[in-house]
């Protein structure tokens, strides 16, 4: 059951007296014992993302004595991360996440070797980064990186401990285990941008990544120890609101382009393009969508111009801050379009301007002509016009 890694067997390592004391609750368990603790010490685990899932992962793997930890993250700590990314403290705001996480984990366990990679994982660096590690743990937050992590793991034959969350639901499984399925067996393709309501429905309950990331930490440790039944061929679903775990069968797809019997993908590809992100970022999307800046809008309002404000965010976002506009969430717009008057000039806004651009695109096809997209949404309004308005 143990993962087929050379490093776990070959290196000669011992535990110091301090380490024996530190890991004593492991050592007195027959399932771990001295042999298991030495496997942990020899193990090399790379975690992709040090955020919500990466926080419990890093903390538990470091605490457990995993001897070599790699932390990949290009992001910096933001105060909105602290609600769930429990590795970081308020003093870390503004620091690179990989560095702040390394400092925290080193303080927890100075005896282990931690390498931080302050870089975005790309098709160019993934294979080189992964090669030095036995197990890859995927705690990222976007589809391109998930497909990239999967493909790189399959190409190198490394297990990929997967966890994913959305609001109050989580998924976890182990991909890339010998004979087991990969991420593409589960989902051959990513959803096109915009179809999955991630923007309007975003957000996550802070404890949820703590639970899912802990499950990933547990599976990682089990893989290292070769103990128990790994979460292979099973997709664990967790619904925090119902407080219910369910399990679905996950099979290796013989026709899978990545790990199937006739592999058609033999190298890493452009995952941004694969996930349709390039198109989304291209200015073509905003072509034909007239924009108004927050400053211009304020000036026109001050002049007494009659402008109808349509807010396409969700009701809970409206409660945080608003421009006294009419609220119709983007998802309800097609059904409620008859509540709008196409004869009046209308400014559509959301948080940052993306959802409102989608709304304007829809309204244009519905025959509306006097439309403006508030550039940068309420965030820009807070920056340019009203510094008292809270940003989120």
């Amino acid at each position, binding site marked *: 059951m143990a993962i087929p890694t050379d490093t776990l067997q070959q290196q000669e390592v011992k535990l110091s007296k301090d380490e024996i004391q530190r890991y004593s609750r492991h050592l007195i368990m027959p399932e771990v014992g001295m042999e298991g603790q030495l496997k942990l010490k020899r193990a090399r685990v790379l975690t992709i993302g040090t955020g*919500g*899932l990466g926080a419990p992962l890093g903390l538990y793997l470091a605490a457990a004595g995993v001897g070599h930890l790699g932390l990949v993250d290009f992001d910096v700590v933001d105060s909105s991360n602290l609600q769930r990314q429990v590795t970081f403290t308020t003093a870390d705001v503004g620091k690179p996440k990989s560095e702040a996480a390394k400092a925290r984990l080193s303080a927890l366990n100075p005896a282990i070797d931690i390498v931080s990679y302050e870089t975005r994982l790309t098709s160019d660096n993934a294979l080189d980064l992964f090669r030095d590690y036995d197990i890859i743990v995927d705690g990222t937050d976007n589809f391109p990186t998930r497909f990239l992590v999967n493909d790189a793991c399959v190409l190198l034959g490394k297990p990929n401990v997967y966890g*994913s969350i959305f*609001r109050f639901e989580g*998924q976890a499984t182990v991909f890339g285990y010998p004979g087991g399925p990969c991420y593409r067996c589960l*989902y*051959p393709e990513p959803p096109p941008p915009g179809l999955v309501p991630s923007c309007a429905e975003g957000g*996550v309950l802070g404890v949820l990544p703590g639970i899912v990331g802990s499950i990933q930490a547990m599976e990682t440790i089990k893989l290292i120890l070769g103990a128990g039944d790994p979460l292979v061929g099973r997709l664990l679903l967790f619904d925090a609101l119902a407080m219910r775990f369910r399990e679905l069968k*996950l099979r290796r797809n013989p026709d899978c382009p990545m790990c199937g019997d006739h592999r058609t993908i033999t190298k890493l590809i452009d995952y941004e393009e694969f996930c349709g992100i390039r198109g989304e970022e291209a200015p073509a999307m905003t072509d034909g969508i007239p924009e108004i800046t927050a400053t211009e809008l304020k000036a026109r309002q001050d002049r007494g111009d009659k402008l109808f404000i349509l807010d396409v965010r969700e009701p809970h976002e409206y409660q945080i801050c608003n421009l006294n506009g009419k609220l119709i969430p983007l998802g309800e717009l097609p059904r409620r379009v008859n509540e709008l008057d196409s004869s009046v000039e209308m400014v559509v806004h959301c948080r940052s301007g993306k959802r409102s651009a989608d709304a304007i695109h829809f309204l244009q096809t519905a025959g509306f002509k006097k439309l403006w997209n508030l550039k940068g949404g309420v965030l820009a309004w807070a920056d340019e016009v009203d510094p008292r308005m809270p940003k989120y």
Partner: protein
Amino acid sequence: MIPTPLRQFTGKQSSIECSAATVGEALGSLTGTFTDLRKHLFTDDGKIRSFVNVYLNDEDIRFLDKENTRTKDGDTISIVPSIAGGSRDDGK
């Protein structure tokens, strides 16, 4: 069972009961009631989208008889879309 991301199209309901002889019939009845859900589950030519998986009890219908998989009283059909969330905010 309706997953979180799609509950906004089902009046916030997390599960819906219906009677149907096959999985395809059950999904048809569901999207007949909640029409906004349709484009999230099916492509324009009526196929289940490849980033949405449908399970009959704990088995993926792609490995059974797909949409024609027969259902019986008390079966649970789950819609499991791909989610990517992890460390950062997706909100825009």
